[in-house]
């Protein structure tokens, strides 16, 4: 792969990241929502006993991670559609960069974000 392809992946990622950080509501909601589920729901059901469940929080955590990943993938898909709607995608498509790099670049933001998140959960729930 040529270096311009890496550049493109990085740029697509950087662009997503900048947009993500700049729109405060998205940033807050994507962090707060899983935490909300984890702690409110988790501590609420903690007293209840289920068959085969020792610690409710560690039972809940994988589900929340999966949910967060699901939502964020949907977000990624929708944001590509947004780009298409606003014509920005066209501009990316006329650059001499392979389609593959564009897709990779577009999706890595959430990969990074939720890898980090999963790690965080792991630390808090499965110590």
């Amino acid at each position, binding site marked *: 792969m040529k270096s311009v392809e890496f550049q493109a992946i990085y740029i697509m990622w950087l662009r997503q990241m900048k*947009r993500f950080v700049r729109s405060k509501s998205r940033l807050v909601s994507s962090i707060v929502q899983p935490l909300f589920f984890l702690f409110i729901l988790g501590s609420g059901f903690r007293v209840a006993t289920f068959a085969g469940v020792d610690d409710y929080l560690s039972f809940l955590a994988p589900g929340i991670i999966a949910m967060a990943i699901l939502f964020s993938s949907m977000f990624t898909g929708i944001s590509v559609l947004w780009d298409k709607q606003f014509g*920005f995608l066209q*501009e990316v498509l*006329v650059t001499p960069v392979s389609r593959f790099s564009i897709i990779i670049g577009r999706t890595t933001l959430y990969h990074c974000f939720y890898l980090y998140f999963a790690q965080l959960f792991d630390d808090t729930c499965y110590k």
Partner: protein
Amino acid sequence: MRCKRKNRGQEPLDIIKTNNLTKNFDGLTAVDTISFSVKKGEIFGFLGPNGAGKTTTIKMLTTLLHPTKGSAEIAGFDIIGARDKVRRNIGVVFQEPALDIELTGGENLEYHARMYGLSRSKRKTRIDDVLNLVDLEDKKNVLVKNYSGGMKRRLEIARGLMHYPTVLFLDEPTLGLDAQTRRAIWDYIGKMNKEEGTTIFLTTHYMDEADFLCDRIGIIDHGSILVIDSVTNLKNSVGNDVITLSCSDMVKLVKKLEEESWISNIEQHDSFVTLGVEKGEEKIPVIIEIAQSLNIRIKSISVRKPTLDDVFLHFTGRIMRDQEATNTTRSVPPRFHDRRR
């Protein structure tokens, strides 16, 4: 103010060359076997009404659409076989704005340049250069969503130029802009053609725009090219002066006028007749006399220099559907023009 380029010495090179380019959409032929070539360093205009096939042609030339038939070459590279090489050589400004409004103007340019693999130092100087060209240097760090429509357009043109393209495609560059901004954008287009030697391929449905900017014009309607020639030649083909008249019995008058040798061409349209003549002012009384001798009442008559409107009418037999802005921008007072600098 016209920006004609002269080819000094060497033979001009064909930068864009199409050969029977065709695009079908489910039975509709959007572009019908068009063949033309654009020389290095010239401003070539595609003039035609909405839906004539201008944007489809641009999309094919910029490798976004696959042609149904035919082929085209840009800077010597085939648009199907060597897409990446073509993409490297072109800059595109689309009809709809294609900027990321959540980023600043500078970031938009920076990211664009990186996708083309420009080095860091080159990027820096180039961003300042192109922003200077379109007078946006003080807006570099402003989010694009706070830009006005004209500023967005200028930024897009700047972005199209970032990576030193051989050809810049402009799809209706002044669509929806006010008169002053249009005028300013014309200046930028002329400036970059002159200073950077960029070959420019633009589409427009504004007659005055094509007239002001282009070296050569192709008139396109219903997917096929009707004529390609320089602006002067096109105008000359209509006649030195154009007389437009409407009267009670046009068929009869036209029949009579066709016998006159001083009329170089005569065309009858729905509600009026146009005549191409020399020294139009002196011919009006003659025409009125002829009409009176036939007992035809003339409702209106006027004489003017031919415009591209007449050329368009001459080749298509109808007036452009969109012509609201024709001949209005020339009269912008200079103070408006200066204020926006």
